[in-house]
């Protein structure tokens, strides 16, 4: 059983996202540990990228802040390694494909395993192109997290069948960012996924309020929150820790209610 399953054991998981190195690698570590103390079951760490085409303005700006502060892939491996010494909560990278390609697939996934990473989400790597990294990821035991979008209807079966770790259900059309309303018919997508796999399915994109978390938590195996967390970091900078703790605690409490 992959370590990622730990996050979904007997409960609906809260999954938090931070952009690694925003505002610094040290602060990212502190924030992630604060979120875990508040009840986060899995943490996504974004590798900052110059041109994050699937992200809205909040995460775009976090990428710029992290890169300007000198974040590198190597330092992010250091962050994962340091976190792994302090927590067993599953950790996954979110990265665009180019930094991984540039590092070299085999070297990247070997380093990932050695650092203690559990999985990887690559927003610009659809199912059709997974051959690109699958061999190296499998070799070093890193789960590739597949995404399923509202437009994926005819593809849900084949994507879900090949999925490992968890499945990332994109709640709605568009880029990342908070939304006042999630309109997609998530029930039927979750049902279609559950027809073919036992791999847990978590929902992300747009979720920011406890009420949304509660609603999604009833349907899916997990709730993913990115922009709302990154917004707190943008607002409070180095002092964001206690606000993140409170926010995650409230969201976690709402899930399953």
């Amino acid at each position, binding site marked *: 059983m992959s370590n990622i399953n730990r996050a979904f054991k007997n409960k609906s998981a809260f999954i938090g996202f931070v952009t690694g190195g925003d505002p610094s690698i040290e602060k990212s570590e502190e924030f992630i540990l604060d979120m875990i103390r508040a009840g986060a079951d899995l943490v996504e760490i974004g590798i900052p*990228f*110059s*041109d994050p*085409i*699937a992200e*809205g*303005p909040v995460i*775009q700006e976090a990428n710029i802040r992290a*890169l300007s502060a000198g974040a*590198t*892939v190597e330092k992010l491996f250091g962050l994962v390694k340091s976190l792994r010494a302090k927590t067993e909560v599953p950790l996954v990278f979110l990265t*665009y*494909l*180019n*930094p*991984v*390609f*540039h*590092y070299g697939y085999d070297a990247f996934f070997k380093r990932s395993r050695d650092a203690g990473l559990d999985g990887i989400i690559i*927003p*610009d*790597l*659809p*199912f*059709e*192109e*997974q*051959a*690109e990294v*699958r*061999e190296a990821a*499998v070799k070093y035991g890193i789960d590739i997290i*597949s*995404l*399923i*979008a*509202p*437009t*994926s*209807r*005819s*593809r849900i079966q084949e*994507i879900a069948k090949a999925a490992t770790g968890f499945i990332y259900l*994109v709640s709605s*059309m*568009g*880029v990342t960012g908070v939304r006042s309303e999630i309109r997609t018919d998530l029930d039927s997508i979750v049902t279609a996924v559950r027809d073919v796999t036992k791999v847990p399915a978590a929902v992300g994109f747009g979720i920011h309020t406890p009420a949304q978390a509660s609603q999604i938590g009833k349907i899916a195996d997990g709730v993913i929150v990115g922009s709302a967390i990154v917004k707190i970091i943008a607002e409070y900078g180095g002092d964001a820790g206690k606000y993140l703790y409170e926010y995650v605690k409230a969201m976690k409490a709402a899930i399953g209610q």
Partner: protein
Amino acid sequence: MSDLQGSFPRKGRFGDYGGQYIPETLMNEIINLEKAYNHYKDDPEFNAELTDLLNNYAGRPSLLYYAEKMSADLGGAKIYLKREDLNHTGSHKINNVLGQVLLAKKMGKTRIIAETGAGQHGVAAATAAALLGLECEIFMGKEDTERQALNVYRMELLGAKVNAVISGTQTLKDAVNETMREWVGRVSDTHYVLGSVMGPHPFPTIVRDFQSVISREAREQILKREGKLPAAVIACVGGGSNAIGMFYHFIPDKTVKLIGCEAAGLGVDTEKHAATIAKGSVGIFHGMKSYFCQNDEGQIAPVYSISAGLDYPGIGPEHASLHDTGRAQYVPVSDEEAVSAFEYLARSEGIICAIESAHAVAHARILAPKIGNDENIIICLSGRGDKDVAAIARYRGSNINE
């Protein structure tokens, strides 16, 4: 290749380049687009409509003009100019746009979006949308909206909404990012009219096919005129749509040298250039595997060129493959060489060409004298230079009011 890899279909490859590296949300739409294109490209009715638009609206076939004075002055090969600047809206961009907007309409789309650098693709897209009755929104880097203000106004006159993109370097790369983001948000009624032979499959193929009219005509025209194939064909390369259009029907003619001219800006030894083949490396970005200007971490580099249309950190995947196999050659041309060629063509032939196209003219000035006068070469004059006159004046130190 392992069994696992073999079990995944790998579509739209030029050698190892190309592919479909895009968000899952777009995959269904991209698959639909491929199906629709495969159907309509062989549909006689679609082709008749497109040919009618190209001939009776865009003004094709474009002239193959013998540049007699330039040929005499350079003292080598006879120089021909493929006059894409004479097309309606003033560049080769209209060829692709008419094809894609017609296709979008057949697919039942009511709205198109497009990125633009210099504004030529934006103007062409806005034009086709106006003609065929689709809503149109254009994304353009804020810096480019300033250096190409006239084209912004043209697009607005044509009924398009122009969005100034303030993220990143505020140029073409960021305009592509923003158009993709917009498309992810609204694919059901919207077609993204990609402006070059780049992006995810099937775009590099679709755009190449629509632009290949350039070489189909040029090949017939030169054979009729000279009774022989050219020694070389030359075109400027940003994403590379006019270049692939100029190359395509000559690719099987092994004696014809295919030469792409990329923007060297202030020089390939500086950091201010957009010379992807000369200075870039293989990467994966904007939906494709190809060559990109990037740093050691795989972060896409900010690039620079005097020409907004060449100011792009990547190159289409088919060009990447033509480079690797040696079938085409890519040479860097600096701002200074391009400006000088711009002025040279104006004075020697009375043609004010786009600063993009001037990169190809600049290389022809070096190449032509080395080739015997029993040979000929063709330069793709991808667009006209009205939009660049003020920028050239600024470059030469005088400020003229647009």
